[in-house]
């Protein structure tokens, strides 16, 4: 997976979280994940299709998700509130939407599908061409895990290889 695909998501996560929480964000860990995704708390998944295909998962532990949602809602929410899950989905939607805006302006065309809440404990294993990059973003409200598994569409990959020479 190329950093040119990943960087807009990192920049967008940084900007959206910093604006929403009005506090700085730092990236603590950045790893390539070969094992199947394991859900840690409240997770939302967004799928992309087009020149770039794959999925991105945002995963927050219950406490961080509740703090984050309460902060954005401007009122204290109970951890069981459905709005907390909605907030995680909306967070994923905003971060991915902002990243997609940058990638589209770079000439990549694709469709973003509405976010869905992940309820399964484990996801599918990443493959050779869709290895997952996992990063932990540390915020004042807790940690946000972003799991990105993207690949070029085969047609776009051939064009990319041809232009690289």
């Amino acid at each position, binding site marked *: 997976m190329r950093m040119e695909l990943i960087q807009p998501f990192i920049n967008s996560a940084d900007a*959206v979280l910093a604006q929403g929480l009005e506090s700085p964000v730092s990236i603590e860990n950045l790893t390539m994940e070969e094992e199947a995704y394991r859900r840690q708390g409240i997770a939302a998944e967004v799928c992309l299709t087009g020149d770039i295909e794959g999925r991105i998962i945002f995963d927050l532990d219950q406490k961080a998700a509740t703090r984050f949602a309460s902060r954005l809602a401007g009122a204290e929410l109970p951890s069981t509130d459905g709005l907390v899950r*909605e907030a995680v989905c*909306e967070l994923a*939607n*905003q971060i991915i939407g902002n990243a*997609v*805006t940058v990638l589209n302006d770079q000439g990549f065309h694709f469709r973003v599908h509405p976010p869905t809440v992940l309820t399964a404990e484990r996801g599918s294993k990443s493959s050779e061409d869709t290895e997952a990059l996992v990063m932990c973003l540390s915020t004042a409200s807790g940690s946000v895990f972003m799991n990105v598994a993207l690949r070029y569409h085969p047609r776009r990959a051939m064009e990319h290889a041809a232009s690289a020479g």
Partner: protein
Amino acid sequence: MEKFAPVKRSGDGQPVRYLIVDDSVFARKNLAQMVETFGGQVVGEAADGVTAISEYERLTPDIVLMDITMPQMEGIEAAEKIVRNYPGARIVMVSSVGYQENIVAALQRGARHFVQKPVKAEVLYEVIKYVMRDEQNAAQSAGAGA
């Protein structure tokens, strides 16, 4: 949340009536909170484009705040269908996907403006004032002609 001078309908001085369309209930609540600080009244909500069209016909709001990426029918298509039947409809697209093609497509199909998420209240406020200005201009023209 910051306080804003109320934006009123120029014709009768009543609060601006909003229809908020977004598949995220969290996003709808956030937008509702914002427009209430502008002195507005949320008269309806919808979670997809199909419901947005029927709610527009039922409520005829002053402004629609419309998300783009939604299930069943996306926001740009819903905006186009509303404007086709109600050419005076004021639709403001509110989406996290703000690339140029999307903005141009929305404006070409009848949306009046575009606001990118995460929404800043002060940005939305200026857009609402701008979009409601046509009503003020029409009222002033009618007054001048009387």
